[in-house]
């Protein structure tokens, strides 16, 4: 049983600029949870596509009710891999991102496609899909709901991070208010999700005692 999510995003910058920003997006004001970033593989293919693998470590922010299901020795950092293919001729970039730690607790896979916006050639559209799953007995739904809610929050941060980096690249001073509004909205979404997931978790626990 897997939770599927799909959304579209738009960046008002050219595909070229977005790709350049993609490699320079960390750090940004929305990425405080990203601790390290490394390219661990990179090659130009015979068809002149750039393929890369990036390793990220992020703070592992499990909510309190999930923490009791984590083995004590489990690291407090999460490891994530991001594979990408940049095709400079077709002007497409495809990325696949997934966690290689904590995967039995919750696995999140995200696939994105960056293309030139068909309505405006100087904009970039992003098609984003995610698959969220968990195999913890009795808590699958609660964890998947939590995972989905957190994923939506992180999409907002990702887009704001991109906009920030693109603005900096283009010599503009990124708006501080934008940053604050986004943080506030992200906090609200996270709070609502936390409540919903907690609710599901306590329902699941009650069932066990019946």
């Amino acid at each position, binding site marked *: *049983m*897997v*939770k*599927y999510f799909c959304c579209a995003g738009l960046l008002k910058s050219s595909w*070229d600029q977005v*790709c*350049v920003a993609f*490699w*320079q997006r*960390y*750090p940004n004001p929305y990425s405080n949870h*990203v*601790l*390290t*970033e*490394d*390219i*661990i*593989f*990179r090659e*130009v293919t015979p068809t*002149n596509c*750039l*393929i890369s*693998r990036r*390793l990220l*470590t992020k703070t592992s922010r499990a909510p309190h009710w999930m923490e009791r299901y984590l083995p004590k020795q489990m690291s407090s950092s999460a*490891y994530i*891999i991001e*594979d990408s*293919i*940049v095709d*400079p*001729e077709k002007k497409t970039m*495809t990325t*696949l991102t*997934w966690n*290689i*730690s904590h995967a039995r607790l919750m696995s999140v*896979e995200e*696939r994105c496609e960056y293309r030139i916006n068909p309505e405006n050639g100087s904009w970039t559209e992003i098609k984003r*899909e995610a*698959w969220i799953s968990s195999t913890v007995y009795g808590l699958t739904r609660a964890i998947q709901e939590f995972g989905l809610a957190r994923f939506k929050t992180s999409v907002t941060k990702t887009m704001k991070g991109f906009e920030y980096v693109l603005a900096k690249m283009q010599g503009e001073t990124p708006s501080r208010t934008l940053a604050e509004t986004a943080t506030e909205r992200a906090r609200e979404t996270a709070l609502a999700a936390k409540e919903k997931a907690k609710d599901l978790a306590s329902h699941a626990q009650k069932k066990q005692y019946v």
Partner: protein
Amino acid sequence: MNSVGEACTELKREYDQCFNRWFAEKFLKGDRSGDPCTDSFRKYQRCVQKAIRDKDIPIDGVDFMGPSKDKPES
């Protein structure tokens, strides 16, 4: 941005600078005249791959774009 290997951050910065310039000015413009960053990449990789082994980070065993197989929708 820091590298996962504390000692590799400087090598990473050097490589990133070279790469970002090559990526924007050559690669995206279809210029296939060769990669000026192979040296700095090699030094950086030597450092970071060792750090990954030392920290036991489980990066092996997954094909490039590996997980992208059957995609059940729910």
